[in-house]
């Protein structure tokens, strides 16, 4: 591990000013960054600790929405009564991720900004275009069983590892970002980039940009939402495939539906084609399958991860079926 200076930030503006310097990085829960320091993936000269900034509250916005502070711990967010009641998909996604210890440390903003668990990215003895631009991507012809089938490029087939981000993408959440030029908002669906020809940049954030909050607005049907995750073992494993869905059905017809997929792309994948196909259609198994197929037309699996395509289809239809049944019963 390379030596670094450590500063505890006293307010968000000071943190942004400090972290705008070359070689600086923010530290919050540390569950991903401290590991990267050990692995040699990250070698900052200055760590700006933002974990004690006063950004640790979940506020109800009055119109049924939530403003979630950037340093709210994943465990506290998952247990928050308003999250459990109004946005169950978010609580479920958080609880499907990591372990109890990690959820106690990991923050809302840190969860969004965690980096891929692609084994080549995490192994500094191998090439990786994300870690060392231009060095190549061994995953395309190597081990890619857990990697992307949608939106990947020849330069990178990494997946975004977060469960929470998938729920936030389905909920049309926005991140509030404080930068050198002031505050701005970015939809969660646009925060994380697709790899294209520059996989080294995970997100659209600039150096020094600090996520201060995540905002979720209320909308009809948000309470009828669910997260479903498929993984190699029953607990404490990253998603092979996951689905976050919100379904609003009236008289057996889909009035609104929002779907995001995890474990399949470089970003939480908002399934807008599937949504488009389903809106105004009967909430039936056949229509759910048709919607999944429409989304998966864009899938370009590699030899070792083709199983993900039917897995997305069955996980998505199962999630929608369960939500539709719950709607019927209500």
């Amino acid at each position, binding site marked *: 591990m390379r030596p670094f200076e*450590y500063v505890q930030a006293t307010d968000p503006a000071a943190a942004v000013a400090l972290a705008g310097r070359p070689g600086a990085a923010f*530290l919050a829960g540390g*569950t991903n960054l*401290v590991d990267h320091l050990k692995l040699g993936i990250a070698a900052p000269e200055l760590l700006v600790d933002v974990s004690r900034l006063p950004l640790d509250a979940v506020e109800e916005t009055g119109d049924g929405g939530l403003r979630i502070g950037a340093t709210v711990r994943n465990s506290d967010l*998952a247990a928050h009564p308003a999250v459990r*009641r109004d946005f169950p998909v978010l609580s479920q996604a958080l609880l499907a991720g990591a372990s*109890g*210890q990690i959820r106690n440390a990991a923050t809302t903003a840190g969860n969004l900004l965690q980096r891929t668990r692609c084994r080549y990215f995490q192994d500094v003895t191998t090439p990786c275009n994300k870690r060392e631009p231009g060095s190549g991507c061994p995953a395309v012809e190597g081990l890619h069983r857990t990697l992307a089938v949608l939106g990947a490029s020849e330069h990178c087939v990494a997946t975004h590892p977060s469960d929470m981000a998938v729920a936030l993408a389905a909920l049309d959440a926005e991140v509030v970002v404080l930068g050198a030029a002031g505050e701005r908002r970015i939809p969660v669906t646009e925060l994380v980039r697709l790899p294209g020809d520059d996989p080294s940049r995970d997100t659209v954030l600039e150096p020094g940009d600090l996520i201060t909050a995540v905002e979720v607005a209320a909308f009809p049907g948000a309470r009828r939402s669910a997260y479903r995750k498929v993984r190699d073992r029953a*607990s404490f494993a990253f998603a092979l495939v996951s689905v976050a869905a919100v379904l609003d059905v009236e008289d057996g017809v889909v009035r609104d539906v929002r779907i995001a997929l995890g474990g399949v792309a470089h970003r939480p994948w908002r399934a807008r084609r599937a949504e488009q196909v389903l809106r105004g259609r009967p909430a039936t198994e056949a229509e759910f399958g048709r919607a999944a197929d429409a989304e998966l037309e864009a899938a370009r699996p590699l030899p070792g991860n083709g199983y993900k395509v039917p897995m997305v289809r069955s996980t998505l239809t199962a999630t929608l079926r369960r939500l539709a049944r719950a709607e019927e019963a209500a």
Partner: protein
Amino acid sequence: MPETDVTLTVDGLSRTVTVDTRTTLLDALRERLGVTSPKKGCDHGQCGACTVLVDGRRALSCLSLVVAQRGREVVTATGLERSGTLHPVQQAIVDRDGLQCGYCTPGQVCSAVGMLEEAEAGHPSHVTAAGSAPDAPVELDDEEIRERMSGNLCRCGAYVNIVAAIRDVVHGSAGADGAGR
């Protein structure tokens, strides 16, 4: 090499240590403060052997820089024992033989203590039924215990008796003479 002083409470005592900023809480405890109950298993947050309680919540000391823990109250498995009396979770693991080599045990103990408080505070888990009351304590059956303890690996495979020990604590029968044996 940047060095700094860090003062924090460890097992009830205020301790100050001068550290390189790169030092993890785990290394500070074990190598600098002589508190060796937290164990270094994987050192990457995957095994849970380094679990301690920080301000009452279970945390991985290997993924935490000690400079970021100034003023925090750290309790290790050592500090859970009070004047010769084991914590009920510790006693239950002894009674149930919930270990073989023992390397993961201090982490299992701290994780279980933190986990029991989370359930008492009504925190749900991945297997908690949707729509359960937010503030009511969560009833811990074996499925809940296994899910909530999934961050602690035991390569000897003592899981069955670890779950039984925690179940005894949940049911208040831990430490009772001959409980469950």
